[in-house]
């Protein structure tokens, strides 16, 4: 029996006016798999995530979660599907008006309707998993450094123990050491949960640490996908140029 993919995108198209960002994108993630999508800035990686989450609606194509079509879902149906997701945003997107533990417990309290005291205990446990002590719980997120914010964002992403977790540029803006800490935390947390993850990044060190499989997005499509250990010998000139950060190559970069 063929296993239904956890996440399946088929022919997804999204344009903003005349600017075609996704042009028939196909991608599949199996259950428990960690896929990293790499690509230059502005190639539509974030747009792809937003289409899957329903924050943007693709003009064409299909997006299936556990075999269920989710394009066009609204209201309660959309919220039901979103219970399967956790997300670490590029800027962490913590809510400044509430404390750190309330940020981590937000999905439990507001989404799942859990009792705040019970949710607080879970939040402190998740903060411990990302290396933050209980003494941080009452603090204001606005006072945290970039690395700390990412950790809290990661704790929030895993708090509801979702089936699928998205990581949007998890190491952007961090120094290499903190980037490595975040990468390892992601690997540990995901392994503990057994979740399927989709990460978008242009940090190859991050991709090599996190990924089971890597896919390259260019021109609105996945132009190469394969196991992470195949990437150095894949023979795709786009991938080769990207992973070695060379200026010369097939990429058409707009340098103004």
């Amino acid at each position: 029996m063929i296993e239904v993919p956890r996440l399946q995108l088929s022919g997804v198209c999204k344009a903003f006016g005349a600017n075609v960002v996704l042009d028939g994108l196909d991608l599949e993630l199996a259950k428990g798999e960690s896929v990293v999508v790499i690509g230059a800035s502005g190639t539509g990686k974030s747009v792809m995530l937003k289409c899957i989450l329903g924050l943007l609606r693709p003009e064409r194509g299909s997006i299936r979660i556990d075999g269920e079509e989710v394009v066009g879902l609204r209201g309660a149906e959309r919220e039901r599907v979103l219970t399967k997701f956790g997300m670490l945003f590029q800027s962490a997107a913590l809510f400044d008006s509430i404390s750190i533990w309330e940020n981590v417990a937000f999905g439990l309290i507001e989404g799942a309707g859990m009792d705040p005291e019970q949710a607080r205990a879970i939040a402190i446990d998740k903060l411990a998993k990302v290396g933050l002590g209980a003494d941080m719980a009452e603090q204001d997120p606005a006072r945290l450094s970039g690395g700390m914010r990412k950790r809290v964002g990661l704790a929030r992403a895993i708090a509801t123990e979702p089936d699928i977790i998205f990581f949007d540029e998890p190491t952007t803006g961090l120094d290499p050491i903190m980037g490595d800490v975040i990468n390892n935390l992601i690997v540990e947390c995901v392994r503990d949960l057994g979740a399927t993850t989709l990460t978008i990044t242009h940090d190859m060190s991050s991709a090599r640490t996190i990924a089971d499989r890597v896919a390259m997005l260019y021109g609105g499509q996945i132009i190469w996908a394969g196991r992470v250990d195949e990437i150095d010998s894949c023979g795709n000139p786009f991938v080769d140029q990207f992973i070695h950060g060379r200026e010369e190559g097939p990429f058409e970069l707009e340098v103004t």
Partner: protein
Amino acid sequence: MNNPLAVVGRFFLNFLAAVGRLAVFAGRSLAATFSPPFYFRLIGQQMLVIGYYSLPVVGLTALFTGAVLALQIFLGSSRFGAESAVPNIVVVGLTRELGPVLAGLMLGGRVGAAIAAELGTMRVTEQIDALITLQTNPFKYLVAPRLVAATLTTPLLVLVADIIGVMGGYLVGIHRLDFNSMVYLKNTYDFLEAIDVESGLVKAAVFGFLIALMGCYHGFHSKGGAQGVGRATTDAVVSSLILILISNYFVTEAFFSQ
């Protein structure tokens, strides 16, 4: 060179599109306001921010408006020997017009800007997207509490502004214009009718709703980082002030047209 008719047509179509977007946003906001879940704690917080923290600015505005009104009416009415009308005109002018309109304008600047800046920052830092991924409807969590709080607290603020404004006129009346204290108060009380206060409170509720709606709308749709948040804040203040003045006319017509 552009055809002038095409320019006018494009402007008109853009205007209609903006009105349509605002109408859809208002509809979604109202639907969120009247359907569960209700965030009573957030409504309470917003009532504190919008109402209590605006008391000083609204009170000061009302105090000096009442005082200036008494002075100007006295100077004007003395030309034809009608100085005794000062308390009557002050109380009617304040409760019907100046109380709600000036409080509305002050709140439009203070509260409208704050709402647009807060929601605009949440939009550009992806906090609104994060709310959605955490299965929380931003219309229910962000917009509805602000609409409810502003609509309920603005009339209370205007009631306080009316009282402080009348007190401003009273202080100038008895200390500067030599009115008898008892006579001033009696004239104020006798001349005031329930509809004067009621119309002002209804205006206040409408203004509060419009201020919160414009703040939320522009904040919600801000884009482009700090500059976008700044533009959203300016648009929220300007549009709410214009809508206050326009709606003031129509509410006045509804209450007092023969």
